[in-house]
């Protein structure tokens, strides 16, 4: 009996499934809605809503409920200290991004072109990610501080006579940023370089271009998109970061992320912190748009018709 019933149930389930399939096939709009709605809901709740709340907060005099005001933004643009911090943040971001991209490209290039142990190097690049960010920063404090590991090593070799004490300097912040964000640059560079067909390099050489010309006219333009992805992945988090400059930079290297953190955690001026956050977000989006306008369509891999 039961063995006779089971196939019947299975057939019913299959029928129901087929029924649903044809039901959806006839309703393409409903199908698209069902596919798009869940992720859209997640984005709205966890991304859009907080952003809207942030914007709302930035327009209040204090903790809600409070009267609306533009005072927070006025304070930001009229007080020179905040503008100079934004400027310094931009400069540090630019320097750290350029250095990270240069070093990352060199590493990715050697991984693809010369190394037979690519997996090993890739692993070494990714491995630091498995250790906590803060712990790695404290490791750098140990290395960079006066009479720390770096000074001891350099003194021992005899390159310097007095300890350098790199910690709490502009350079220390750059070193920290490069160290933290290098993997984020190496991975997209590695991906786009390994997609590059070796025959294109050979063809360029065959047609008379030396290694440098080939690099400039084939390798670099062909990996342009990977480079842009790397710049974005590295530049954006650096612009908003606060732990690295706080731990390695000391008081002279304040970045805007530190001010925001300070407003929320210590000054309890959430409205001003929110105004700073919205400003930073706006600057980042503006830079992305400007970059796209200036460099053409970074995200296009095929090369469309003009």
């Amino acid at each position, binding site marked *: 009996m039961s063995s006779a019933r089971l196939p019947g149930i299975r057939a019913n389930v299959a029928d129901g499934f087929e029924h649903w399939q044809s039901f959806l096939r006839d309703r393409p709009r409903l199908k698209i809605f069902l596919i798009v709605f869940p992720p859209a809901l997640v984005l709205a709740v966890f991304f859009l809503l907080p952003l809207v709340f942030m914007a709302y907060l930035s327009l209040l005099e204090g903790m809600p409920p409070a009267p609306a005001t533009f005072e927070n933004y006025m304070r930001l643009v009229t007080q020179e200290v905040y503008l100079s911090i934004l400027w310094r943040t931009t400069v540090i971001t630019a320097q750290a991004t350029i250095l990270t991209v240069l070093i990352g490209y060199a590493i990715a290039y050697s991984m693809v072109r010369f190394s037979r142990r690519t997996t090993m190097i890739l692993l070494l690049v990714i491995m630091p990610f498995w250790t906590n960010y803060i712990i790695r920063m404290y490791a750098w404090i140990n290395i960079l501080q006066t009479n720390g590991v770096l000074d001891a090593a350099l003194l021992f070799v005899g390159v310097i006579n007095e300890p350098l004490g790199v910690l709490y300097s502009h350079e220390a912040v750059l070193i920290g940023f490069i160290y933290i964000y290098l993997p984020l640059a190496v991975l997209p560079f590695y991906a786009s370089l390994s997609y590059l067909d070796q025959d294109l390099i*050979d063809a360029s*050489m*065959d047609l008379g*271009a030396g290694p440098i010309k080939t690099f400039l006219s084939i390798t670099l333009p062909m990996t342009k998109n990977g480079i842009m992805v790397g710049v974005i992945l590295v530049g954006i988090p650096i612009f908003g970061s606060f732990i690295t400059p706080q731990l390695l930079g000391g008081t002279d290297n304040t970045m805007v992320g530190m001010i925001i953190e300070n407003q929320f955690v210590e000054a309890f001026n959430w409205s001003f912190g929110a105004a700073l956050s919205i400003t930073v977000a706006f600057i980042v989006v503006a830079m992305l748009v400007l970059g796209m306008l200036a460099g053409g369509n970074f995200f296009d891999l095929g090369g469309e018709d003009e």
Partner: protein
Amino acid sequence: MSDITIHGLRKEFGSVLAVDDVDFDITEGEFISILGPSGSGKSTILRMIAGFESPTAGEIRIGGDDVVGDPPFERDVNMMFQDLALFPHLTVAENIAYGLAQDGVPADEREDRVQEMLEIVHLEGYDDREPHELSGGEQQRVALARALVNEPKLLLFDEPLASLDRKLRQHMQIELQQIQHETGITFLYVTHDQEVAMAVSDRLIVLNDGQIEQIGTAEELYDEPNNSFVANFIGDINTLPAELERDNGNLAIDINDATRTVGDSYVDPGVRDNGHHEIDLCIRPDDMRIEPSTASEANAIAGTVRNRIYKGGTTTYHIDTDVGTVTAELGSSQFDVGDEVGVSWSDDAAYLFPRRESEA
């Protein structure tokens, strides 16, 4: 003196011998093909001439100078790649002008020569297209134009037509030949497709296991193959295992226990006197004769028609015999599947070679 001389060229990859002391000459303006199965080392030879691989030993002389050790960008040799390797981020005109720009040709002259090339490959007006917008055949032409434009001493082809369908391939073959005549540039073409190679080349080099089996015109290779490999590779051929014996001073060939007595002069001295006992007897399908078994010759091989393929002018029969399946191509289609027949051939149609282990 030859314009391009390859002497003692050898390439080892670790313990694998890819190219084994290869020698050949190419005359200026010649269209020469290297023909061989995959893995025979033909692409390695090409890549060594282009400069992408360095030989383990040997000389590559182009116009008298040994270029071994020179990087690819200093060699007056261009290559048309198997996957074409068009630069996807450049337009058709920029692709073609690439080599000229490297040679320092001024921009306006570059423009003229690109136009000239586009005309030769019948792609007028395609200047601003991008490679991905072109059909397979058009991409081939762009790659050809790019390789031709700076007039190299030697143009190398690494099976660039392999990806095209049969019709387009045949069309491109004819065009390649015309373009070669027009430009007078020496072509070295590598392929495993004997049909293409025989159609376009002045001479062919048959390569197997890194060694040259034979060099000659298509006719020479077809009519006078050096060995059973060449006989098999150039055109179809039946290979029958046979034994060579001396019986009371007479030379005899044993096939399937039937003995044919032949004169000493029938067998090539190289095969006859080197003590080769086991030989391959090779006959082209169109040299085969089929008779009804009742009327067959005394030393015919008995067999059964397995299938027949009507091809219009001719009919191809596959006949099962005790020495394997024999292919015969006849002008008539009088036999049917299942017919008992006798297969024979005239003695002067057969090639005798020392037996060698068959290769895949």
